[in-house]
């Protein structure tokens, strides 16, 4: 509503009214004067002529308005609102459907409460069907905690909007509102339905009803005050979008766990009071001897993984990095060297449990077919599962010191504006890596990872930090998926026993890659 009236609306209206009052007072005074001078007939004729002229002019204007191209009309009805950045591809499809509804709504819906309710319900049903097409009754496919969280969210949001946008909302007592409700018998049933937990849920899943009553009341008034139909259309669109947004949140399972709850589920071993949420998990992957363990050591700032000319790593190992300065706490999963395509299932399973992929590729090795196949397998895995969100990929190009000329090692090298042969070779290698691995050139970080000769690790950190928000989104969706997978009798039983620790248990299982039976 802030979008419609503006924060200062009430004061402007008051000022306008005060300024207009003296002139409005002239209307009855003038009528009395005309009456006394018996000139009222002339005034009436003049008025009739003016109305006639106004009518003709209005028709002209209306016809001119019709000639506006349909594209402009669509823009006038409101731009498409972009989906939330944190949504998965599946959520985005649902949002497109909501947008479809929003595009069809007209401002008249706001004045007709029945139409508003019907549209809202249709939107919710559409979203529910999108997420649970196999259910006969998709509308009811959610749990009690979800419904309560939804109610909480809507309450919080409505309050914020009310305080911001509804004039006088802080001074109006609820008693006044209730009195108004009682007078208006049409909405009395809504007020009644607000008692008892069952009613609360209904209110939660059908927030439209409450909103509709309120909106329809308010906008009848607005419309009477001469709001343009264009304005009403835009408001209608916002209303439908807001309903759709909450429906998506409900049925996508995003409300299964609150963000605050996730905070509390952090494994205690890594828990730091200041640490934000669960540490992001980074998968360090790449071919045999690409330098994965060297990268892990470089990021940890310590020797934690064995580095050798022969393939040293056998099983995936996990290392945690404490947060330092502005860096978040991380967990690095050093996957075993990938030598053949048979490693794909293992790699995909690891990637599914990680929030960001650090792909290590040798700068001086042109054989990148295996790299590409493995990366494509991971991409394909996520592409086939729209409810998942693929972790972002950062490529660390290792061993840049071995590029031509071999004998030169005089960092720093400016690859953006290469000034020497070495810098040019590094730049060319970056482009080759980006092209053959199918990533953007900006996602390739050249580095030297030899212990004692580290170079550009800061750039790796910068690249990781830049993708933290995106990685957090992946993490959130991943954790929610884990929370959702705890369904079934056994899961519920464990939930009762372990309570909030369940999720952390799953997370730990995911790290080890082994499903221990409890």
């Amino acid at each position, binding site marked *: 509503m802030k979008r419609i009236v503006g924060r200062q609306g009430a004061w402007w209206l008051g000022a306008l009214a005060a300024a207009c009052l003296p002139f409005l007072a002239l209307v009855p005074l003038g009528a009395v004067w005309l009456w006394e001078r018996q000139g009222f007939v002339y005034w009436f004729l003049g008025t009739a002529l003016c109305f006639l002229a106004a009518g003709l002019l209005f028709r002209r204007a209306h016809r001119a308005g019709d000639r506006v191209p349909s594209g402009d009309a669509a823009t006038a009805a409101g731009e498409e609102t972009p989906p939330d950045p944190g949504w998965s591809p599946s959520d985005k499809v649902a949002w497109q459907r909501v947008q479809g509804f929003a595009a069809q709504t007209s401002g008249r819906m706001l004045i007709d409460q029945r139409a508003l309710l019907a549209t809202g319900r249709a939107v919710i049903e559409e979203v529910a069907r999108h997420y649970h097409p196999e259910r006969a009754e998709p509308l009811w496919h959610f749990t009690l905690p979800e419904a309560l969280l939804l109610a909480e969210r809507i309450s919080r949001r409505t309050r914020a909007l009310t305080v911001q946008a509804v004039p006088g909302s802080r001074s109006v007592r609820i008693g006044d509102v209730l009195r108004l409700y009682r007078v208006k018998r049409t909405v009395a049933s809504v007020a009644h339905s607000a008692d008892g937990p069952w009613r609360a849920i209904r209110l939660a899943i059908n927030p439209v009803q409450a909103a509709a009553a309120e909106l329809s009341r308010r906008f009848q008034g607005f419309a009477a005050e001469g709001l343009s139909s264009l304005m009403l259309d835009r408001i209608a669109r916002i209303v439908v979008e807001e309903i759709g947004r909450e429906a998506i949140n409900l049925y996508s399972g995003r409300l299964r766990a609150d963000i605050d709850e996730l905070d509390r589920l952090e494994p205690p071993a890594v828990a730091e009071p200041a640490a934000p949420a669960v540490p992001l998990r980074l998968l360090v992957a790449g071919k045999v*001897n690409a330098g994965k363990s060297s990268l892990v050591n470089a990021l940890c700032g310590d020797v934690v993984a064995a580095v050798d*000319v022969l393939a040293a790593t056998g099983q995936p190992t996990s290392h945690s990095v404490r947060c330092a300065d502005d860096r978040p706490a991380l967990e690095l999963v050093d996957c075993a060297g990938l030598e053949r395509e048979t490693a794909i299932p293992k790699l995909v399973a690891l990637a599914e449990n990680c929030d960001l992929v650090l792909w290590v590729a040798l700068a001086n*090795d*042109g*054989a990148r077919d*295996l790299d590409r196949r493995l990366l494509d397998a991971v991409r394909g895995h996520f592409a086939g599962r729209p409810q998942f969100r693929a972790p972002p990929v950062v490529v660390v190009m290792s061993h840049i010191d071995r590029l031509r000329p071999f*004998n030169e090692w005089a960092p720093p090298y400016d690859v953006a504006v290469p000034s020497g042969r070495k810098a040019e070779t590094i730049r060319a290698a970056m482009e080759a890596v980006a092209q053959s691995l199918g990533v953007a050139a900006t996602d390739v970080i050249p580095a030297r990872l030899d212990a004692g000769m580290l170079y550009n690790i800061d750039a790796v950190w910068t690249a990781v930090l830049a993708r933290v928000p995106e990685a957090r989104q992946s993490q959130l969706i991943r954790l929610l998926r884990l929370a959702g997978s705890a369904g079934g009798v056994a899961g519920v039983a464990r939930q009762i026993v372990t309570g909030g620790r369940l999720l952390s248990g799953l997370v730990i299982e995911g790290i080890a890659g082994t499903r221990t039976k409890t």
Partner: protein
Amino acid sequence: MQSILGRAGEQISSFWKDVYDTVLNPKPDARGDTRIAEEARARAPVIWLLGMVGSGKSSIIRTLTGSSDAEVGTGYRPCTATARIYEFPEEAPVVRFLDTRGLGEVAYDPAEDLALCEKQAHLVLVVVRAMGPVPAPVLDALTRVRRRHPDWPVVVAQTTLHDFYKGPGALAHPLPYPFGDGTRPSGIEALDRSLAAQRETFAKLPGSGAVRFAPIDFTPEEDGLAPADYGIDRLWTALEAGSADGVVSMMRRSLGSSGKPGVGRAASHIWGYAAAAGAIDMLPVAGVIGVPVVQGKMLHSLAGMLGVTWTRATLAEFSGCLGAGALLRFGAQFGVRQLVKLVPGYGTVIGGAAAGAASFATTYGLGHAAILYLSSRRSGARFDADAVAEEFRRAMAEATGVARASRMFSRDSDGKAGS
């Protein structure tokens, strides 16, 4: 006696006439050129290079042939969409490198190429980077090959040794070459362990053919790693040992003899022309072109490479300085061979074979003598007629020995070197 000498003289004069004509009035002769290239090609050993992309296959071709990038780049013939044969030199190949596209290149399936290469190869030269394990695609391909040809020798070139040299700004090869027969330690701990691990991997190959190792590091001059062809002798030795028939040894001498600018490159052409002459002479009835034409083309091509032009006078001087005795013997042999060749049955086989070897040897000798003559002509120095004659005899003897040892012109080998 008089008539025999007269006939020999006629033979010689008609032979030199053909040579003179070809050298002095070179006519565009696409069929002849193709024929020479084909015959040389049929006898040139095929070295199959097998390795990942970027493992150093092209460097090996360049260094072994002493050819620049441009020459190797143009001297190839595609045999499938992606596999290529690098022939060196192009006009009359001495050696053919069968090069698949590097394994592991993005979106490249090598199955078809590998099947094709397997049909053509004499020797497999596996190229792997010294650092790290043997790449799985290479090992898989090699294992398949050895299952089908258990006795095929394999030479493993372990490249990019400088990856192990530590210390900024001071990369240097350990000298003298410490690896000996390719299996001895260098003293660089990580390098030795990696090489040993690779040898262990290759030891598990099926089949009985010997596997030889050559740690090498071929780099362009501008990289500043001296020598630029580190380990080339070891690689040659391994290749020679791999091809028991001595053809590679011959090729090595042919390719390796250099010194004055242009001479090495010119010398590398002789072998191909000689092989073509030998092959053409083996045929019962001379084909499109005869041995004199091949030799004439060779002399013309050598002169072009050394930046000299033949004239009637220089050609006469050159033929004169080969020595009357040598020339006579050479001419007489030529005449006798032609007669033997016409004896049906036995003569065609034995005579043809002997004629092939002799033509090979004389062409080879003629080429080397011509290089000596032409290079002294070019430098303007007074040439030594005896030295030219001596070079002719020396080279001819060398070639005769190799031709006999390798039986490259014996009938049963049917155009393939070795048995």
